[in-house]
């Protein structure tokens, strides 16, 4: 098992490496580059632009820029020495060995062009809200989709099944952002106004989320703080999971029906097992196999969905950070966000594979 996980992790390395090249390539090919934001500003001369480029290392050849960003080389040295870290080991090795601290490989994503902060700081700050949103959404998504799917499969063609079918079609066709807008209209607009339209906390009651004062407040009134965030989570989570639930409940249903049609289910019935045992022991476990893989493949949508949801509901997470960074041509932040989310996707797939291997004894390690 451990060997299998290690092997899958090693297999993920080239993919991650490829991702860095693609991410870097896209941003590199973008016209204008980081200086584009100055174009409209008449007070910034060519000279200033050059200085700006030099200050950010943008005057270097592209491979050098890439290597520096990745942390393959040590920009302080010259000649072949650039590839050597402070301890004399190759620079790309982990910090404890090479002594190098620069570049993505050592967890350094550089500085944000727009704010001058460390990219890490900005990402870490935005990560917690996104993790809260995505985590809750993932939980709701899986529980609801599996329950709905299994129930619909067992009670095939029932009223519930038909209603679930309609929901699945419509939910799957609904653009997330539109749903978000309509929900705000419905629940936070001039009419009902029972749910918060956006944000993560009630600003009149608590300090801004993530600030030091907030944690003090949180320590004092944890229950209130939690229910506040929970209250604000309702609409975004609902918006985020509808599409996935719509698609996956159908998938679970189909997979369950497929499993119920298998010969081994017939054998189980022939053994005289009660219907419950046949369904929930023999069929369900097999039906979950394709579902696990499918969920692994759908994890990226959680990130994509987060951008939408965070934008509409002013959720201070990674999605909002991305939009802001895109608008400000903040390349280091964008690269960091893209790379981290891609890595998470790779990890999610890996996790799905491992989960698959755990429930399917036919997979050899």
């Amino acid at each position, binding site marked *: 098992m451990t060997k299998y996980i290690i092997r899958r992790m090693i297999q993920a390395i080239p993919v991650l490496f490829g991702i860095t090249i693609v991410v870097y390539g896209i941003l590199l090919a973008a016209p204008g580059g980081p200086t584009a934001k100055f174009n409209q500003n008449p007070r910034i001369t060519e000279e200033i632009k050059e200085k700006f480029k030099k200050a950010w290392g943008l005057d270097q050849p592209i491979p050098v820029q890439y290597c520096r960003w990745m942390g393959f080389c040590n920009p302080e040295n010259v000649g072949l020495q650039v590839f050597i870290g402070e301890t004399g080991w190759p620079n790309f090795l982990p910090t404890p060995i090479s002594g190098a601290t620069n570049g993505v490989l050592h967890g350094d994503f550089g500085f944000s062009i727009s704010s001058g902060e460390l990219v890490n700081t900005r990402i870490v700050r935005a990560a917690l809200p996104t993790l809260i949103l995505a985590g809750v959404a993932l939980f709701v998504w899986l529980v609801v989709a599996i329950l709905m799917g299994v129930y619909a499969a067992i009670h095939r063609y029932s009223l519930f099944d038909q209603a679930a079918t309609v929901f699945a079609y419509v939910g799957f066709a609904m653009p997330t952002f539109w749903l978000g807008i309509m929900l705000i209209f419905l629940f936070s607009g*001039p009419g009902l106004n029972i749910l918060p339209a956006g944000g993560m906390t009630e600003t009149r009651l608590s300090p801004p989320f993530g600030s030091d004062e907030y944690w003090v407040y949180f320590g004092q009134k944890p229950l209130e703080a939690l229910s506040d965030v929970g209250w604000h989570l309702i609409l975004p989570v609902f918006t985020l999971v509808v599409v996935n639930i719509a698609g996956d409940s159908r998938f679970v249903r189909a997979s369950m029906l497929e499993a119920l049609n298998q010969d081994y289910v017939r054998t189980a019935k022939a053994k005289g097992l009660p219907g419950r045992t046949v369904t929930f022991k023999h069929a369900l476990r097999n039906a979950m196999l394709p579902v696990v893989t499918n969920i692994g493949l759908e994890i990226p949508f959680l990130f994509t969905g987060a951008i939408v949801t965070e934008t509409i509901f002013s959720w201070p997470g990674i999605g909002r950070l991305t939009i802001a960074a895109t608008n400000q041509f903040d390349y280091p932040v964008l690269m960091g966000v893209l790379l981290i989310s891609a890595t998470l996707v790779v990890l999610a797939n890996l996790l799905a594979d491992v989960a698959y291997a755990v429930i399917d004894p036919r997979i050899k390690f």
Partner: protein
Amino acid sequence: MTDSRKPQGAVASDLVRRAEEAGQDYEVGLESLSQMQLAWRKFKGHRLALLGLTILGILIGVAVLGPLLLPYNFATIPLPDKIVYEGRPPSAEHFFGETGGLQRDVFRLVVNGARTSLFIGFSSMFIGVVIGTIVGSIAGFVGGFVDNFLMRIVDVMLSLPVLFVILVASRFFGNGNVILIVVIFGLFSWMGISRLVRSQFLSIREREFVEAARAVGVTDRRIIFRHILPNAFSPIVVSSSLIVAGNIIGEAFVSFLGFGVNPTTPTWGNILSNALTFIPLGNWWWPLFPGMAIILTVLAVNFIGDGLRDAFDPRSRA
């Protein structure tokens, strides 16, 4: 074959006997349908799919004719008497209502938006399918290192949160240009197709009928184009419908965030983007109708996709 195979005398009676043994009249019906005709027949039996096809037909009609009949040229339409902040709800004259700001007819906007949205959805799918089929065919047929290399690229592309990347790419390259947006969406729509085509190649290549074709001396080229690709056709078509649906939503989303098509061109996403600012006023009709247009289109495309899936599924009966 020479004339010696023509039935004569004893041989003729032999042939008659063989025919009798074969029982040729019991199984074969009078009509002969190709797989395509059969598929169409089954498709016609799928009510939702026909509904989808009708809706899509109407939408395409609207997209083609709409801008001619109800042009979006506000230069020729007199400006409202005064610029109002609030829009007006649906009425007999404006049955989708009017927007705030320049007080535009929502119906007119939605009709004009159909053209761009549908165009982007379908043409980007087309690009994706072409790239995906080529990449998948090469990987599946050549195999070995090339296959490995191409599939690792697919892995990389699939690991990227695609809409994330499209968003950034549209912002940086798109400049609001419809064609560029199409290309960007196309460039990120091929991975699924290429995996599909590759796996079809790998499995169909091992099928006995391909081996039989090789045994009678059929060339590789013919095997690819006459045996493998036609058999891969149905899964490609089915997943194309998903791509169209996905890209229509994707484009609306990118435009909604202001990174897509130029805001002066009406697309469903752009209309929604403008509506967002007016939420506090409760102008529900403004986002409602373009959203419904998207849902309707995607539903129609998905219905068609479902119909195609059933139609091509050999296990389902006509």
